[in-house]
């Protein structure tokens, strides 16, 4: 028997912009996840009784399973609240369906990071955290600034080279009715923005948001009978290379290269076959590292690639079409997956990529991951 194929058949999400605008009360992250899950099941044309696997992130599986009436689950787990978990959770759901152990997996994520004023600067269990704090050092953004400074020095990149990435996200967010930051940003606005961890400026940072996101995955065979164009997960892969702190001296390159080689072997698809990119961008330098690691740009050249290639809808590989984490909001990779599905379904509205059949999700991080999604 050949291996079963997996498809995303349902997506759901909050209106991140509406939640962003009102931070008067602290929201319940699990409730946001359940709302998104209800929407995703409806979108899929499925009921809670069809679901036999549940993976949650940032919120406990108990709360979601109880609230959504999910019983008799053959796969269940709750992933932690770091963004690197989204790609990993989707990968694990796909593996479980391929194995035949489960048929239909619900993935539900919720965050109240904005209304609860979560401090991400100390959110990670770095083994050097106490030592680094002596010197005033903490926060993934500051460590990423160090990786970017190293990159600039190594490859002769200008420290303003992130601007096309930041502006592209904000242009796309303005076209996304549910984005957190829809206010446009121009070049002068970018250059005048305050530095946080130099060389990074405020628009290079993700926008902490509230919201829920959910996905429903099942077999490609079953997807054929459901309402929307099936979006198959043609391949997915993960590689963890965690370090004592957020700095990876290799800029995640070898991890991403390893994943890219596995994806290519499984799909036969090369970077130029991809129609649209959804790139994990907690900070804009990560986009450069991902473009190089996953083979879209040669090593040391992504800073020129983002300048010379159109990242927008008239370009060869439109990138972060819903605004990414710096525009749509920091939904920790989850909303990027939803956007990938919408693009393949042709539901992108004003931000639709023409003839979009292949979308790649890429995350360069201590747990790097990537998926190739193909419309069937």
């Amino acid at each position, binding site marked *: 028997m050949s291996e079963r194929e997996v498809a995303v058949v349902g997506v759901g999400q909050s209106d991140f912009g509406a939640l962003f605008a009102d931070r008067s009360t602290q929201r319940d992250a699990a409730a946001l996840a359940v709302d998104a899950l209800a929407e995703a099941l409806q979108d899929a044309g499925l009921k809670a009784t069809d679901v036999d696997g549940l993976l949650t992130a940032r919120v406990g599986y108990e709360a979601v399973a109880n609230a959504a009436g999910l019983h008799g689950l053959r796969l269940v787990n709750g992933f932690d609240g770091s963004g690197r978990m989204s790609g990993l959770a989707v990968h694990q759901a796909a593996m479980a369906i391929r194995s035949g152990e489960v048929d239909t997996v619900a993935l539900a994520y919720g965050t109240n990071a904005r209304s609860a004023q979560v401090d991400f600067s100390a959110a990670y269990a770095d083994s050097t955290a106490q030592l680094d704090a*002596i*010197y005033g050092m903490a926060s993934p953004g500051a460590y990423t600034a160090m990786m970017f400074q190293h990159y600039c020095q190594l490859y002769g990149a200008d420290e303003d080279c992130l601007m096309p990435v930041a502006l592209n996200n904000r242009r796309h967010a303005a076209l996304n009715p549910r984005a957190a930051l829809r206010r446009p940003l121009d070049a002068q606005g970018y250059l005048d923005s305050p*530095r946080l*961890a130099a060389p*990074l400026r405020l628009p290079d940072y993700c926008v902490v948001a509230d919201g829920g996101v959910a996905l429903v995955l099942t077999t490609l065979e079953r997807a054929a009978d459901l309402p929307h164009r099936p979006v198959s997960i043609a391949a997915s892969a993960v590689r963890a290379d965690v370090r004592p702190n957020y*700095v990876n001296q290799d800029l995640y390159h070898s991890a991403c290269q390893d994943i890219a080689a596995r994806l290519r072997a499984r799909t036969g698809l090369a970077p130029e076959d991809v129609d649209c990119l959804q790139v994990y961008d907690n900070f804009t330098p990560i986009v450069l590292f991902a473009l190089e690691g996953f083979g879209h740009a040669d090593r040391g050249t992504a800073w020129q690639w983002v300048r010379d290639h159109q990242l927008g809808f008239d370009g060869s590989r439109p990138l972060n079409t819903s605004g990414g984490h710096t525009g749509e909001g920091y939904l920790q990779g989850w909303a990027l997956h939803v956007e990938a599905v919408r693009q393949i379904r042709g539901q992108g509205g004003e931000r639709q990529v023409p003839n979009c059949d292949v979308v790649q999700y890429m995350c360069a991080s201590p747990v790097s991951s990537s998926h190739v999604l193909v419309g069937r």
Partner: protein
Amino acid sequence: MIPDGALPPEVTAVNGPFWAGSAAGELRLQRCSSCGTVRHPAAQRCPACLSPDYRWEAMSGDAVLWSWTVLHRAPVPAYAGRVPYLVAYVRLREGPYMITHLRGDLTELSVGMPLRIVFEPAGADRAVPVAAVVQ
């Protein structure tokens, strides 16, 4: 100067010799007795071979600059009054990396520039390593 309030972590059985070394003006790290790997921060076992056996050794004190950032907003409360301030990431000759401050002429920084580990007081009775630019 390390600001008041940015206190080094508590001295424990595992990290004690590191802090004793700092107080004595010497960078002491663990070297695995089995495979020879030098590690930092202090840990019970070697991350390269999992051996629990190690000895504390004085390092050369030579390092090179890997990268740096200038923080305009302090992610650590004790540094709120210090912004903007520079934090560096340096690679010790023996292999491990560490976050630290730079001392000396910082007008032209570059990856790979040579540094020398020196020590500064922190709190009432502690000392911490920082990296001085080698002229």
